[in-house]
């Protein structure tokens, strides 16, 4: 009977393609929009993703997310070092400073100041130069996206020439020399990222009483990081989070205080509704159009269970194909947009979630059709 079910489905080409297209678009919309949303959310903690060495981030208790900069006194690093279970603790500066480009334009940059001695918290991958080159005079390392784009030199003929090692710029009226190019994870703010030493960053930054943004902490071997966080909070009165906790704090802030989840959520829900409306309706219409034939099969001895299995098979068939095409199209979109500013993240959990959504759409359509077939009186076959 599976054979009859599939031939009934595929034989009606227009409806078959209509159902598949509906499910494909639903799957595409749900997957692609969710992937962009996940990409954006991942970017919010991109800086944390890149900074893997420290176990714990210590900051002002009022900090709500990674770019919420509330400076601390530099003496706090000494207090943190004194907490039992801390292997080492180093200061980090993070701030937005204006860079003056050779053509006279200004660009706000995300400047990260690393501990002068250890350079802990540096970029995950150096493309040109070395991290230790930061110890040279006025040295900075610039991210690879910005050297070709926002920090690129605009030539008199309008051509953009990438920033290269040896080039200079002004950071808040201070001379800075590019000594390296690094690769970083794109962040939500998308400003150029510039690494330098902590002491130099505090020179670049406007004078303030407090300048240190974070204390990066490594726990001693065998030390539970959650317990250590709790201890640091108790001893210093500062906030202390593990990397994962800080990521969650950041995501929670964006989820709660920005319209991003609502905007994307609406599109995802729309995708679901489009799926139910188009695919569900077309599938139900397909069943209605075939109701006489289902009745005929019922009269000829097909049990309700057999007919329900036929409908489920039909729903599973269109669901699988529609989902596959939709997810495939979303993957192509993701691949093509990989080298652009667009964020796109496609974890297996998202594939499972969109598969669940498409399954729900198919199940809803199938249930309506099954209800119709179960209630079908086989005597319908004698009505002309």
């Amino acid at each position: 009977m599976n054979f009859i079910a599939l031939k009934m489905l595929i034989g009606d080409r227009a409806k078959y393609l209509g159902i598949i297209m509906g499910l494909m678009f639903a799957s595409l919309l749900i997957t692609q929009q969710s992937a962009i949303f996940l990409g954006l959310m991942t970017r919010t903690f991109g800086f944390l993703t890149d900074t893997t060495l420290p176990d714990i981030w210590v900051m002002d208790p009022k900090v709500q997310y990674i770019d919420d900069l509330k400076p601390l006194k530099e003496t706090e690093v000494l207090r943190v070092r004194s907490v039992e279970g801390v292997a080492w603790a180093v200061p980090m500066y993070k701030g937005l400073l204006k860079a003056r480009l050779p053509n006279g334009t200004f660009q706000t940059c995300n400047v990260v100041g690393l501990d002068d001695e250890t350079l802990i918290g540096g970029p995950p991958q150096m493309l040109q130069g070395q991290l230790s080159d930061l110890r040279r005079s006025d040295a900075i390392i610039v991210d690879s996206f910005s050297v070709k784009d926002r920090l690129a030199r605009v030539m008199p003929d309008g051509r953009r020439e990438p920033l290269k090692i040896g080039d200079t710029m002004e950071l808040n009226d201070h001379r800075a020399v590019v000594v390296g190019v690094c690769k970083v994870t794109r962040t939500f703010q998308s400003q150029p990222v510039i690494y330098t030493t902590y002491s130099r960053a505090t020179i670049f930054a406007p004078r303030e009483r407090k300048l240190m943004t974070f204390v990066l902490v490594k726990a001693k071997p065998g030390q539970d990081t959650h317990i250590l966080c709790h201890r640091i909070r108790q001893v210093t009165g500062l906030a202390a989070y593990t990397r994962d906790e800080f990521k969650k704090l950041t995501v929670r802030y964006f989820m709660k205080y920005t319209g991003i989840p609502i905007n994307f959520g609406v599109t995802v829900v729309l995708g679901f509704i489009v799926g139910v409306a188009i695919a569900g309706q077309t599938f139900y219409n397909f069943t209605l159009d075939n109701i006489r034939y289902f009745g005929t099969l019922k009269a000829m001895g097909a049990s309700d269970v057999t007919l329900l299995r036929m409908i489920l098979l039909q729903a599973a068939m269109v669901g699988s194909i529609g989902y596959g095409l939709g997810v495939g199209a979303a993957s192509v979109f993701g691949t093509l947009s990989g080298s652009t500013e667009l964020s796109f993240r496609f974890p297996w959990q998202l594939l499972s979630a969109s598969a669940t959504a498409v399954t729900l759409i198919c199940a809803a359509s199938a249930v309506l059709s099954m209800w119709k077939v179960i209630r079908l009186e086989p005597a319908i076959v004698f009505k002309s």
Partner: protein
Amino acid sequence: MNNIAVRCKGVTKTYGSGETKVRALRGIDLEVKTGEMMMLVGPSGSGKTTLISIVAGVLERDEGECMVFGHDFKHMSHREKARFRGQNIGFVFQLFNLIPTLSAAENVAAPLLINGVKRRNALERAREILNLVGIGDRTHSLPSELSGGQQQRVAIARAMVHNPKFIVCDEPTSALDHETGHKVLELLHEVVVGVDRALVVVTHDSRIFEFANRIAKMDDGHIISVSDSRDFRLNEKLN
């Protein structure tokens, strides 16, 4: 030996309730013998289709008794009824009811597939039967590629492919021209009626009465007469 295929006694059926109540059958007594073709005739609304629906087990009766080869549908579950129909009853419909996306052979194979026969064997048997009804060269054709007569032949092949004991036909010639209708009835008579098989045909078409063994005339939910085909036609002429 009991040669009764269908025995109905006092069968009633009412549709709706209150002011919209329609009494379709008002106490039907009917016997169909094995090896005979019985025709049910009568004006529209006389209860013919309701009667064959009950006899074929696709509609519940309200009262009375109705046994098909000694089995009463009333005492069967839905599943048992479906199985009984699948194994023992063949259907020929007015509008053929061939599934438009299946080929002729696949349509004919459907009852076998319902009964759990493997697809390959079912299609092989379907092709044999299509040969028997004279359209062995159209096994791969879709219903839309066949003429009305050919479609009805496919429907007849489908009704007999699983070798049922009892076949019900609802207006099998109404969608066909006279000559094709005649050929279809000849075919039905030739290949279907056997000593252990019974056929009930609902029809308005007086031109095919000659094929019946007996004809039951219905009116207003009653069977008003049952007579031999020859007597019936004679009476009709005299009236």
